[in-house]
């Protein structure tokens, strides 16, 4: 599809002048210098307050336990092995304290991220494309149904979804066991445990597969893609699926990236649902583990801080790499 390069790039078409750039040109005569210095002081103090907890966290995470629980600010005994210990679960715990291996939890979260983000993006892409550019009976009614979910807060979904997931879990294990019995295989409690939903990835993934917001965002964007592109693709013999993946997705890189980011962050910091459906370390995500570690961790300030850094760094790295997408995508939607 070489002709696509000639088409104006919809993704970056007509960027509005950035607010700050326009503001730079506002010339204010008789500007009071003292006032400006005070402003800088106020803003710097604010910035300090915003940054200080992060710095505090970093410095605590490399202290030994006595230092971490004292009032000093900078570590004298620089213990990078805190990270290694938190990672592998070999903390030198005093009596009553617990050990948790955050490497496992990070790996759990990464696995969950891969499954959820991939599936959710695919589901959203297909649905958004169909809603935006295909004709089928009941399309507008279905879209109205999707929009209804925006009004539904997560709190009223907790109980019924727990009931649904429990039932699905029992149903799939039960079906598997009866099939195995039918085949004449000896059934043990372990033989079908991979198919259960609770305390397994399906309970953590399936309820979040369809993000109404992503579908809505992508649909708005797909609608603006000029009809000529579709005509050209059709003449070249492409169907809807090829058109979607070879033309639509490449030119809508920006909104697709935004939805990917949103779904990534959503999975990373989810707490209320994962606590309810995970009971073992097999799929426990890092946010849940950190919450539990902080409740039971007691005196181990340095380890809790090291674990927090581990949970924080990937997202912060993502923030600094994709800062423009991040700020524009998340700031304007009010989602996190």
């Amino acid at each position: 599809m070489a002709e696509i390069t000639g088409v104006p790039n919809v993704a970056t078409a007509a960027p509005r002048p950035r607010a700050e750039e326009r503001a730079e040109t506002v010339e204010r005569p008789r500007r009071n210098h003292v006032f400006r210095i005070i402003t800088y002081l106020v803003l710097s103090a604010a910035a300090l307050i915003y940054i200080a907890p992060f710095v505090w966290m970093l410095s605590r995470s490399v202290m030994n336990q006595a230092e971490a629980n004292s009032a000093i600010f900078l570590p004298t005994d620089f213990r990078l092995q805190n990270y290694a210990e938190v990672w592998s679960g070999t903390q030198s715990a005093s009596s009553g304290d617990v050990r948790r291996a955050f490497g496992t939890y990070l790996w759990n979260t990464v696995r969950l991220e891969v499954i959820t983000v991939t599936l959710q993006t695919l589901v959203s892409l297909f649905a958004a494309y169909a809603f935006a550019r295909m004709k089928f009976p009941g399309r507008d009614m279905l879209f109205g149904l999707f929009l209804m979910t925006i009004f539904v807060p997560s709190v009223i979904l907790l109980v019924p979804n727990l009931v649904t997931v429990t039932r699905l879990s029992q149903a799939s294990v039960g079906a598997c066991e009866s099939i195995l019995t039918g085949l004449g295989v000896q059934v043990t409690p372990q033989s079908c445990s991979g198919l259960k939903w609770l305390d397994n990835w399906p309970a953590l993934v399936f309820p979040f597969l369809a993000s109404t917001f992503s579908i809505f965002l992508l649909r708005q964007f797909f609608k603006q893609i000029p009809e000529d592109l579709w005509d050209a693709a059709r003449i070249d013999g492409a169907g809807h699926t090829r058109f979607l993946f070879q033309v639509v997705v490449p030119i809508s890189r920006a909104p697709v990236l935004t939805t990917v980011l949103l779904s990534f962050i959503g999975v990373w910091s989810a707490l209320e649902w994962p606590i309810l459906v995970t009971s073992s370390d097999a799929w426990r995500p890092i946010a849940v583990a950190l919450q539990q570690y902080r409740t039971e961790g007691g005196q181990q300030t340095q380890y809790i801080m090291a674990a927090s850094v581990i949970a924080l760094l990937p997202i912060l790295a993502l923030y600094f790499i994709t800062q423009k997408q991040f700020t524009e995508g998340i700031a304007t939607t009010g989602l996190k």
Partner: protein
Amino acid sequence: MLPLASIIISVGFLRDFSSNRMATLAGEVGQTRQSREPRQTAHSGITAKRGEAILGLLFVAPATIVTIVFGLYPVLLGFFISMQGNKGVLPDGFVGLDQFVRAIGSLAYLIALAVALILVSAGYALFRAAMRRVDHRLNDFAPYLIPAFIAAPFSMLLAVVMFTGSFEYLIPCLIGIGVAIFFYIALRARHPVDNLALSLNSFGMALYLLMATFLVLFTFSEMASYMQPALDVVTTAMAGDRRYGYIFPLDDQFIAFGGLIAGLAAVFAIHTTYRKVPRDIEPGKASFFGALRWLVLFAVIMLGAYLIGAVDAFRATLSELTPEAIQPLTRTRIETVVAQANVWHEVFTISLGILLIVIAYWFWVNAKERETNIGTATFLLASILLVIGGWLFVGELPRAAAAGDEELYRSLLRTVAYAAVCVPAELGLGLLLAYLLFHEVKWGKGFFRTVFFLPYVAPTVATAAVFAMMFTLRPTGVANQILDTFGIPAQQWLRNPDGIFQVVAEIIGGRNTVLPPFLVGPPLPLVSAMIYSIWVFSGYNAVIFLAGLGSVPRDMYEAAQVDGAGHWSTFRHIVFPIISPTTYFLTVLAVIGTFKAFNHIYVLRDEGSRGAMDTTMVYIYETLREGATPQAYTAAISFLLFGIILLMTVIQNRISRDRVFYG
């Protein structure tokens, strides 16, 4: 609450839907376009169209299935669970509003009646929409009511069948719906244009009205059965006393209540007619209707007074109930009897109070239109008197609610305190920072913006864990160190359930100072959560406000400078109105966000604080997680929270309508 959302959506959706509905469904657009295309492609066009329809359905199938199973069906299921009793933790059998009564006392009945009222008005709105359509297209609306009123009860029954699993009703349901569809098809043959919208409209109307009727009947029957033992006792106990003989079984109150509503309807009808009469042409008719209006209004007021008397007499009767009078008649405890008997009385009094306030509002609005000063003064006076009267009746509310779950109320109070501190602080700080950043800073703007956004971007669990460590009990913790530099003793931030002002008073006035309960302020752990919340969201608000400030046109500042406006007046009269959409957006977001706040409070939460940090959201979650409270009860209180959030959104929408300036 759920019906409200569905109303909001269905009204908007029907409007949206009507525009291209028929075209899409009958494929008219495709056909007209096709007729312009060369003839030879006509056949392949139809095949392609069918292929596209199948492919499109396939494309949306996964998303649709997930959304229905985990997004919409749970709402119905949750509502149904909330109406169930419990054997242990698990839901077990339909019990009606019992879980709601357990949560908020007899207030639950009032809310059910209010929801019924909302349903009726939604049905009326749909009726109006249909009539408007009839006016425009000269299409008959009435025939579609037949299939609608057949389909509506059977679909309601179908929903019940689906959730209770009593499949013996399935066949009658399907037959009923089949009959409705048959009627619809028959009608469609007669009126080929625009019948889908009309029938959907009348179906929605029938559904809303039937739901409202059922809700009212159910509420009253439930209340009656709930009351019956108490009433029997009271009637027997009072039988010898002629003074109160006429009160039971509440006939007078019912007649007066019904008469009041009928009278108000009559006033409304006469008022509408009166306004339609062309006064300069038919002065006789107009003055007749005017006089009638006043007459009926007077009758309504008299009826209201009578109802007040009847309710008050009932209250007097209740106060005559003594343990000695009741003891021989029943083994039920006297408190239970009185509590049950009070339900009626409370529901009556409060709805009357609300009615009076509504009438007062109507008087207040009408006062402006009076031509004479005396008329205006009379209306204003009447309005004020009515508000006072209404307020006295609404004052029953705390007593009606007192039977509910005390911990739920406390958590609601905490949530309100949390929102009342956080929302203004976050927005104010955010606006201040954004304003300084926008106008005074030449370099480093990007740096400041990145830093301000940082707390919001970081995963909540990690930063909240840091704050939990900073607010540690140890005197060496950061928060206590800061206090120490001011010479204040170390505090148990996350554990001390005392109110903040109580803590301050103890610091100033010594250990034994005790403040009155209404002055102690939010508990210290909640204050810690507020500090965290302000730390996170003020920076976020600053970044959004910064974008909003960029939308103020440059020449406006210049014009203001030419006019000699100072810093403050420029901000107050130019900048603030222009960024009002941003402010509105952020306010809605902040209010909803604080009511739904969960993650950071849950991480900061200390078991030792005896729930001092449990906002409603956390309370709901804990009842679910700890596994001792019935799931049905959790479902019920989460619906209550949903209702509160929805109500706040609607109120904010109303308030902002006149104050937000769009472009």
